[in-house]
């Protein structure tokens, strides 16, 4: 972050055009032109800060039940209480604190799922794309099988096997997502491996492992970074959906989807217990998708006005 904001994008247009830019500052130059993307990044940074500082900024514990304050409305509505800014739920837990702690779960899910799906998917994709042949055919058919199921349904079935919990939901979502990484990486590697610099490296005696992961892979990263952003938001949505269906995080975990499931029976009596967790999911996912769009525009060479 600090590296990026320090990039010389504040230079005047003339000097900026004359100074050769490093890849990072060039990226930031294009990324920062997209207002939506910068807004998304700012909001995402805010959510990250909230998640990291949850213990310090949350006014209450996420699970403490105030039995004298059941279903209190938000503070601006009649009957609200200044102790509970966004009101309380059916067992008297502070909504704001639960939302703050909930951000930890969503970001955690996103990070773990993307990391897991990416490591496995990219490794498989690089190997299949480079080697081709029977191994390639086998892996690709396997990926076709995973893709033949609607992703949420497959995740549900996997959780049914593993048992409902947040960990198992993350495993299931990572399994469902990694075919996309395999396909993307494989396609990128296949188009790169015939290029001259790869041949040159091979002739120079670079061993296959190094060739695949050090020579070719760095040149395939652009679409993968965009995919990572998109699958981060999908992972948050899917984990919330599984939580909502009772197959993800279990109560009393303050996971946003699980909170919505608990709130369902109060939808006509207490709008705040239903509205706020959903707003939190929507804004987080929206911020990441905005960033993803900006990343795609900044990294896609076709759209660059060079």
């Amino acid at each position: 972050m600090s590296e990026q904001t320090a990039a010389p994008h504040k230079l005047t247009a003339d000097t900026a055009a004359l100074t050769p830019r490093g890849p990072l500052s060039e990226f930031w130059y294009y990324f920062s032109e997209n207002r939506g993307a910068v807004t998304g990044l700012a909001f995402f940074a805010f959510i990250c800060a909230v998640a990291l500082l949850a213990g310090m900024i949350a006014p209450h514990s996420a699970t403490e039940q105030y039995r004298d304050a059941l279903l209190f409305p938000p503070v601006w509505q009649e009957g609200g209480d200044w102790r509970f800014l966004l009101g309380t739920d059916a067992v008297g837990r502070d909504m704001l604190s639960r939302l703050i702690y909930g951000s930890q779960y969503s970001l955690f899910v996103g990070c773990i799922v993307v990391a897991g799906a990416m490591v496995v998917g990219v490794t498989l994709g690089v190997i299949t794309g480079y080697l081709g042949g029977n191994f390639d055919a086998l892996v690709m058919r396997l990926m076709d099988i995973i893709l033949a199921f609607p992703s949420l349904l497959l995740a549900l079935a996997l959780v049914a096997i593993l048992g409902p919990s947040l960990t198992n939901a993350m495993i299931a979502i990572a399994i469902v997502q990694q075919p996309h990484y395999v396909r993307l990486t494989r396609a990128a590697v296949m188009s790169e491996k015939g290029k001259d610099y790869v041949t040159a490296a091979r002739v120079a005696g670079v061993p296959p492992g190094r060739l695949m992961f050090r020579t070719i892979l760095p040149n395939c990263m652009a679409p993968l970074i965009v995919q990572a952003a998109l699958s981060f938001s999908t992972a948050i949505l899917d984990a919330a959906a599984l939580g909502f269906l009772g197959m993800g995080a279990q109560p009393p975990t303050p996971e946003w989807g699980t909170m919505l499931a608990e709130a369902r029976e109060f939808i006509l009596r207490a709008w705040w217990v239903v509205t706020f967790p959903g707003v939190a999911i929507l804004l987080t996912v929206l911020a990441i998708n905005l960033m993803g769009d900006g990343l795609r525009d900044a990294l896609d060479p076709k759209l660059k006005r060079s």
Partner: protein
Amino acid sequence: MLRFFLRRIALLIPTFIGVTIAAFAFIRILPGDPVLLMAGERGTTPERHAQLMEQFGFDRPLPIQYLDYLTSALQGDLGISLVTKKPVWDEFFVLFPATLELSFCAIIFAAAIGLPAGVMAAVRRGSWLDQTVMSTALIGYSMPIFWWGLLLIILFSGILGWTPVTGRISLIYFFEPVTGFMLIDSLLSGQKGAFSSAVSHLILPTIVLGTIPLAVVARQTRSAMLEVLGEDYVRTARAKGLKPSRVIGLHALRNALIPVITTIGLQVGVLLGGAILTETIFSWPGIGKWMLDSIFRRDYPSVQGGLLMIAAVVMVVNLTVDLVYGLINPRIRHVG
């Protein structure tokens, strides 16, 4: 052309076999053996256990069991539901029309709004209209639809009282299903008010299920239109002095539609996944709710059968989309 068709179909066979293996493995991966699973918490005596193992063929080698499963699945025998004791195949086809009807309405909704919105956004690129359409589309694309459904229920059913919350039709109407599609059946029944009741039950689920496809269609239409509008033949058409509406509607849109139709077709997986959430919220008696209920009731033959059938539906639709794409876009036929 025929070679292209056959090649695509041939590619599907290993995937289909893989899907049957995955569905077959589903029950075997679960902890505990299948008979214990079926017996549930009551448990069985060892003799009864052995007898059941033999009766269902679970004591035979796995490859033989799989071949048995495959042959009966191909003949439409997906086993017996543990809860209702009816064949899974019959259960599936009783509920499938409900999901089909909902998905169909959702995709019509998505296309009817998404296509014009995308076209207008592309034609007026950079205008406030473009920005509004695209930001709305991004919000729709980011929407947790289960929450969106709850919000719509609060607004339209709770506060305004316009639409019913659950089911496919008001309970005061009863008629034998003919097609399984409530919109058609309610018309056929000739009962006054039945059709409008069915429509009012459909509106909210349609919007909820159609939201993400709508966003995807609008975004895809816009980018396809933008690409086409920059082509030479569009400039030529403009230079000839054709009316803008004719250039956009006839020359540009026809070519832009090719990728859009593919996108719409590929939404079927999204729809069937979203149906689980939508049907759960609105108590819609379709496949999605049935699958979730089956998972909760540990009705494993139903889950297994449902997985196989849904994957088969997705594969057939994707194949159709692929073939149609080859048909309307000759360039693709000779590649790959």
